């Protein structure tokens, strides 16, 4: 089975507000998917649905199971880090290891201890005595020592400084990720980790606005940097989005071959962050 997540027509309302309008997407095994969207777009609701933490309408299979009715079985193969603050403050590092070892049949304690040895975290410390960065290191050490098939990370590095953020993703990529595992990440710091993604899923106002592999993006989207005079002509080719950068105009085109635009200015491959802004703001900006 190569499809890790299969979502069709997910809908969810919180009283008056509609969090998910009609969300459909698939995630295949061995991918690192960036779930990207502005605040309130519905990212966390999608993740909660995948993790069986919320009710919703629609069809959703995660590793072939329905997270609503088969959550307990599912959690053997799925791990998640929801937020840096979630480890209980009274917990000792050694107790955290004891607990996960006691309840998770696929937890490799030696591996977690190996990760922890590379940090300044001591076994006897309580979570309340650790810095925010160390709490994340501890959480990551626990999660990475679990042989799971799907790892879900919701803003895992929120509030951490650059060193810890970099270290977090390096560890994730070097010591964890392989062809059998799938990682789904939401983050605000898109620029920092966009090289990590193999796939992106843009979501806005409870709808998927873009679903693509990263290679697919390079073929489909083109960024043109033009002088204001060239820009007038380029505008006739219907750019998705444009903005002014140091007196020049940066435009992003969807599905327009680079050869059509080459005469109008400098051609680049847009970054995921550029595309995100273009998709969220549209031509209006």
């Amino acid at each position, binding site marked *: 089975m190569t499809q890790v997540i299969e979502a069709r027509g997910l809908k969810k309302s919180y009283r008056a507000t509609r969090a998910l309008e009609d969300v459909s997407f698939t995630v295949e095994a061995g991918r690192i998917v960036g779930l990207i969207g502005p605040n309130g777009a519905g990212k966390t609701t999608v993740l909660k649905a995948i993790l069986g933490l919320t009710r919703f309408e629609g069809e959703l299979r995660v590793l072939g199971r329905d997270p609503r009715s088969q959550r307990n079985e599912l959690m053997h193969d799925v791990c998640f880090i*929801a937020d840096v*603050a979630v480890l209980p403050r009274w917990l000792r590092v050694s107790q955290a290891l*004891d607990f996960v070892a006691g*309840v998770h049949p696929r937890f490799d304690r030696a591996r977690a201890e190996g990760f922890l040895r590379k940090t300044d975290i001591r076994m006897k410390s309580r979570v309340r005595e650790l810095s925010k960065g160390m709490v994340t290191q501890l959480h990551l050490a626990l999660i990475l020592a679990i042989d799971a098939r799907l790892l879900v990370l919701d803003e895992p590095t929120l509030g951490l400084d650059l060193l810890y953020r970099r270290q977090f993703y390096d560890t994730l990529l070097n010591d964890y990720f392989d062809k*059998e595992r799938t990682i789904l990440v939401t983050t605000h710091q898109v620029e920092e980790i966009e090289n990590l993604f193999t796939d992106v899923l843009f979501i806005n106002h409870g709808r998927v606005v873009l679903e693509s592999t990263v290679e697919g993006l390079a073929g489909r989207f083109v960024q043109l940097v033009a002088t204001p005079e060239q820009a007038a002509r380029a505008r006739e080719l219907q750019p998705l989005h444009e903005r002014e950068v140091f007196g020049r105009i940066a435009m992003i085109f969807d599905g327009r071959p680079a050869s059509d635009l080459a005469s109008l200015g400098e051609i680049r491959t847009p970054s995921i962050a550029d595309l995100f802004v273009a998709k969220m703001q549209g031509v209006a900006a």
Partner: protein
Amino acid sequence: MSTPTAVAPGDSASATSAGTASGLRLRMFSTLVRREFWEHRSLWMAPLAVAGLLLVCALPTHGAFQINLDDGVQWLDPGHKAILFALAQWGLSVPHYLVMIIVLNFYLLDCLYAERKDRSILFWKSLPVSDGATVASKLFVGLIVVPVGTFVIALVTNLLFTAIWNLRAVFGHSPELVLWDTVALLKVEILMLLGLVISILWYAPLVAALLLASAWARRNVLLWVTLVPLVAIIVERLAFGTHYVAGLLEYRMNGIWERLHIEAAVLGSMTSVGPSEVVSLPRVLDRINIGPAFTNIDLWLGLVVAGAFTYAAARIRRYRDDS
């Protein structure tokens, strides 16, 4: 994940996997129980503190705290001393159970609320532990582990206390106030154990109700569990002039003990020792009949209610979405 290795489908293979599966479940449950004692340290610290304090009282003391019983014990004969021994076993256990009731109330109100308050619930839910198993582990701790543990600690404290007291008597530092009586000890302890079993069964719905409140309340769990019954009692009285809620609560607090007719057993056990008429505790123990408690239908109905409350608490933990 590695590809599945060749496992021959057969009876032996499935039997082995079934064996390890129940082993894993047992390990998971014991881990969940240990977790409760890590988080709620008062569960084990309070009973040990009570035991420590009682034993300190048994040690030789000087000055104001010294009790001079030398004159008083002169008239005590062995019968009196055996009665005192049994009474001491009983009396020394009382502080343990009083403290247990206080500690358990706070534990039960907090155990499903704290994980939401400190936002650690998503960490616990990121592991393959069902909500049912989590709630069951907390019920097991509050209903079985702590009461039985308290019984054991009280028993050990009693024995140590008596040993210390008797050692002091041997060395002449204190009057020989009590006389060791194995039969009395066993009778008292067995009766207390039976009382404990009845308490566990009878109070199970109250314990489960506190768990349910802990799972349900958004804040101020203690306020909810006091206000809801209080308001219900007042509203009922004002609106209908009746007091069924108060009656029901009172019955659930005391009802089972009335069925044991302890008062009659005490009154029927007067015995004369020397010149005075006293209650013979060993005789009281013989007269108390536990049987009617277990044939009480309300005891078993209460267990059904406790089960329903526990199930509701697990459902709330499973489907609540406010994290």
